Every structure is written in structure tokens, then in C-alpha cells.
């Protein structure tokens, strides 16, 4: 069963007098448990696609079915509830709240769960998610006391805390060094393998896209190619490291 189904998705923006077509008709199905890497240069429309997939934006035209439900034209509040329950976001800049402890950062999505979740349950679930990321000892650390990799792991814990069926990762390794990037990719692969969570990864780095089970290349708002991929093992060394070794 496909968790995501896009049919003729179009998105146009008005930029001054110009009309920009960010998405020019995208039709796509993503099945549950896939690890889809969407690649493309900047301006290709991959970010717009991710915003629509994340229910942060609505398409101008076309249909978006998420878990069998048409969400293309839902009102804002219902989209908020869908983001809350079904989608976990991982961002390039981590987007952790400063001067807020790790566990409180993880709790954020639980604050907006309806019906309202009691504080004790929020804390318990957030701690569980942090523990899954191996950060239980750092629960009371502020983001500036954590390394980049740890910060991204807190962000992943936050994305997972409401047990979503879909994780949208927007350039999650953009701010990380190679070693940490691989670590993060391993976590995403494990989530897919162990929990069957569908992962959509947006990246412009082919190396990172290679960790997916399917690679979709986007250009000018259209799908250029859509190929299954044998995911690269996170046990392999990254090309940069090979080069370093070679030298």
C-alpha cells in the first residue's frame, strides 16, 4: 500500500510580476517502508515538494493522498494535526530550541497532541525517544552543550516521539561532518528496517542519496528519474575518507 500518492501535483508562486512554477506536475507513489532520496540542485523544486509532502504547504493543482486520505485541500488546523501525528521532521539546521534541554526539545510535538497529553506522559515518551537515540544521559543538556551529531539525534528523537509513519528529512546531514553524516544515515536506515517507518530524504549530495532504497532526481519541477537503489551500507567508508587513506 502506498503511503504517499501524488497525482499531477503542481505548485506555482507569484514572485512580483513573475509566476514561478516550482512543481510542474509530479506524479509519484511511495510505499510504506521505502527510503526515498529526492535529489536535485537548488531551484529544482525538491524543497517545494518536501513542504507539500510535509503538509506545510498546499499544492496549487493536483492531489496528495497521505495514508489514503486526500490532504491537498485540508484546512490549516487539520494539516497541523496530521503533521503532529503522522509526520516527523528532521531539518538541516536541527532547529532545536536554544536554552531548552534536550528532553524538553523532544517534548515539543507532544505539546500539540490532541487530546492534551499529561506532562508526566510527555516526559516519559520523550525520555524513551531520547534513549532510543542513545542520549538518555544527556537529557538535561542544552543544545549548545551537545555536538552536531548529538543535536541531530535529539532532533530525530523529536521527530520520532509521536510515532509517525513518515519521516521527512530535509538535508539532515548538511551541517554535519562525514562521519556524523554516516551515523545519522545509519539511524535512518535502522528506523526503516526495524520499525518500517517510511523515510523521504531531500538532499543534493549523491553520496547521501545513495543510502536510500530509491532515488528520485528532480529538475525544473519535474521528476527526471526514479530508480530503485541498493542502499549503500553505512559500514562502508565515505569516499572522502578513501581519498584521505589513498593519499
Amino acid at each position: 500500500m502506498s503511503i504517499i500518492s501524488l497525482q499531477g501535483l503542481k505548485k506555482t508562486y507569484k514572485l512580483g510580476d513573475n509566476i514561478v512554477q516550482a512543481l510542474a506536475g509530479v506524479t509519484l507513489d511511495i510505499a510504506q517502508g521505502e527510503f526515498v532520496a529526492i535529489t536535485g540542485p537548488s531551484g529544482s523544486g525538491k524543497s517545494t515538494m518536501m513542504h507539500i509532502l510535509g503538509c506545510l504547504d498546499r499544492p496549487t493543482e493536483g492531489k496528495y493522498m497521505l495514508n489514503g486520505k486526500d490532504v491537498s485541500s485540508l484546512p490549516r488546523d487539520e494539516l497541523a494535526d496530521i503533521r503532529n501525528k503522522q509526520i516527523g521532521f528532521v531539518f538541516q539546521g536541527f532547529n532545536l530550541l536554544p536554552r531548552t534541554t534536550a528532553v524538553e526539545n523532544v517534548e515539543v510535538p507532544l505539546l500539540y497532541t490532541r487530546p492534551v497529553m499529561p506532562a508526566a506522559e510527555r516526559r516519559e515518551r520523550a525520555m524513551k525517544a531520547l534513549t532510543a537515540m542513545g542520549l538518555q544521559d544527556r537529557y538535561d543538556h542544552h543544545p549548545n552543550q551537545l555536538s552536531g551529531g548529538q543535536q541531530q539525534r535529539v532532533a530525530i528523537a523529536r521527530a520520532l516521539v509521536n510515532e509517525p509513519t513518515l519521516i521527512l528529512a530535509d538535508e539532515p546531514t548538511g551541517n554535519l561532518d562525514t562521519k556524523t553524516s554516516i551515523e545519522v544515515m545509519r539511524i535512518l536506515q535502522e528506523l526503516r528496517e526495524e520499525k518500517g517507518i517510511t523515510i523521504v530524504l531531500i538532499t543534493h549530495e549523491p553520496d547521501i542519496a545513495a543510502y536510500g532504497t530509491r532515488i528520485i532526481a528532480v529538475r525544473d519541477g519535474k521528476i527526471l528519474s526514479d530508480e530503485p537503489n541498493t542502499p549503500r551500507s553505512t559500514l562502508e567508508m565515505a569516499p572522502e575518507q578513501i581519498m584521505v587513506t589513498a593519499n
Partner: protein
Amino acid sequence: MFALMPVNIRLALRSLSRNRLRTLLTMLGMIIGVAAVLTMVALGTGARASVEGEVGSAGTKLVFVHSGNYIRGGASVGIEEGSGGADTLTLADMNAIKSEVQGIKFISPGLSTRTSVTVGATKAFAKIEGVAPAYSDAYSWDLKPGKMFEDNSSQAVVGRALADQLFGKGSNPVGKSMQIRDQVFEIVGVTSGESEDHKDTVFVPYQKLQSALGMQNIKEIVIAADKAGEASRIGEDVKKVLRKRHGQGNGAAKSYLSAQAGSGTSPDDFTVETQAAQALTKGLYTPAAAFALANLPKLDEVNLEEMADTLDHASDTMTALLASIAGVSLIVGGIGIMNIMLVSVTERTREIGLRVASGARSSDVAMQFLIEAVTLSVLGGLIGLVLGLVASRLIGWSLAWPVSVSFAAMGLAMGIAAAVGLVFGIYPARRASLLDPIDALRTE
């Protein structure tokens, strides 16, 4: 929406504590505004309460007619002197006043002496007042315990302090007897009247005191007007009646100006005083002040309503002044809060984006910022409350102005603070809630 209140308040406090100086400066307007509101109410209600107390205890409706004329004067100041103390008033005078002057509710003759009273073995020196039963009504005594004596009876009413002195504190002397000179009176009531020296006086029917003192005339007539504010008019009418009866010229010279104008003929042999004049001159012991007041033309036309009006006016002026300070600082404080909240929304755009991505609805975001604004204003309000308490005490103490701070006033001040936060927080909160999450997440 409200279930997240504790979380939102905690978030607000945390974000406010991150920038303490900024928070404090933002709250300054609120602090001053609330302090001004509180001080204003404290001074206003304090003044009003004291005026009301004055009006209540002084008995605004009373007019006194004394025999004799104590006007001071002499050739040096060009004012004719009064005739001094004399027994010039009669019961017939009183009856004439009663029948000829309109608007009198109660009227009582009065004469007094100071002598010793004996209860068993206890002896005390006290003032004895001979009055009619209507005296009790004129002063609105609440006789607890007991009742007013009957006319021309051998009954007496004693003041509370004297009763305490003679029979023990808080005792009930009703039914007991007391000896005044060679007459025995049965005590029928105790008055705790606040006015004048009622507390230390024994009241007996005036006929008994007349016979004891061998007097035909009376010293004083106490008149209670039907309506407050009529005292001065009644006083004037009483003067006319008495001048006619006593054969004195109309408009006896009293003041320097009228003496110069030569309008007077002979001085009155009585004095008419309203309660207001008495209240005003009470406590002025310096001869100069007493002279000035006693000779002030038309002083007895000042009634307590006018006095109350004057005081009210003064407190109104003060209130208006403070209200404008309060109003301006609350508006400025509110704008300050709005300003800083708008800055905060801009600074925290990414946070808003993240919250929206995590499933926060627009109303959740709006609520968070609204609560932050209200927290800011209420915190400022609390500080202002403390400041206002100190300020009103200080002003009350330095200007000898009565202050009263009620819980209602404090509640009002805090309510205003919260309302300001709410009103000026709405716009920034709305701005935050309408942020496009995509733009919000993109902001660096």
C-alpha cells in the same frame, strides 16, 4: 487551548528570564502605570472615607444657638465686641424658633454645669447636660443599652466613658441609680455618641437641671435640620427670629467690612453656629486662628456638604492627575510590550516554524505569545503593586492625606495590568500565528 496554560506560562517565564534587562525595561511602563493606579485609588478612597467619616460623625444637620456673644474685637480692629456669656435664651425663644422657622426636625434646649456625681461609694466630677428627649434624635444616638429618658423625669443617660469609669468597663448601668448633688436619677440608657464630649457627660431632663441650678433661662438651643445643607439657612432664619424677639437691629455688625460700612447697630446677645463652623474652629487653639475664624464673615454659612465638596474636589483633582499619569504610562507600557513582543516574534521565527511543523495550530502559537505578553504585563503589574503600596504610604505620610488600599483596588490594578497585556499582546500574537511556516523555517 487552555490546557497548555501551565506550559505556556513556564515558556513565557523562561523566555522573559533570558533577557532580564530587556524584560525589566519593557515592564517599566506597566510598573509606573499600575503603581499610579493603585496610589490614585488609595488616595481617592482614603480621602473619600475620611470626608464621609467627618460628615457622619459631625452631624451635618445641626445648628447651635448659644446665649451670649463671644465675638472678639475691640477698637483696635474696628470690630464691635460681643456681649460675652449671658443667659439670654429662653424656652419661649425656642418655641418661637420652632414655630416660625421652617425645616426644623428636632429641637432641644440645653444647659449644663460641671459637678460631682455619686454612685454608691464612687464619686466623679462630670459635665451634666440638661436637654429634652429630642436631643437624642438630633444626634442620632444609638443607645446601647437602654433608651432616652422621658421628659421632666428623674431619669438620666450617661456617656459610655463615664459609665465605664463609674460602673466598670463594658458594664450595663441601666436600672442603677446615681446621685447628682441632692437629686437621685435612674439611669435608663448609655450613649456611645462620638460627637463632642458626649462620652463623659450625664444627660438629664433640662427641667431638673434648671431647678437644681435655679435657672429660668437656657444656655443653648440645639436644632437638627430636616435636610442636610439647610443648616445655614435655618441659622439665618433663627437669627432673624431672635433679633426681632430680643429687639436687636437687623444685621448686627460683626465683620470689619460691615463695621466700616456702618451698617450695624447693636451686637446680638446670642450666637448662631452651624456644626460646620464648629467643626472648623474645633482644635484651633491659637488665639490668632480662633480670632480669624470666629470673625470670618459668613463662616457659619459653610456647611459640611460644602466642606465635603471641597475635600472631594481636592481628591478629584489628585485622582485626575494620577489617572492621567496612570493612563499614559499604561498606554506607553502597553506599546512597549507590543514592541518587544513583535521583536520577540521576529527573533523566534524559527522557533515558531518548528512548532508549526511539529503540529502546533495557529491558535497554539497565538496563545503562547499572548500568554507571554500577559505574563510580562502581570509581572510588571506585581512590581507596580508593591511600588504603589509604598508610594501611597509615603504620600499619605508626607501630605498627611488619608490612604486606604483595599484588596479590590489591588485586584483592579492587577486586572488592568492583565488587560493591557492582553490588548497589546493580541497584535504580536496574531502576527506570530500567521507566519508562513515555510518562511519561518527558512529564516536563519
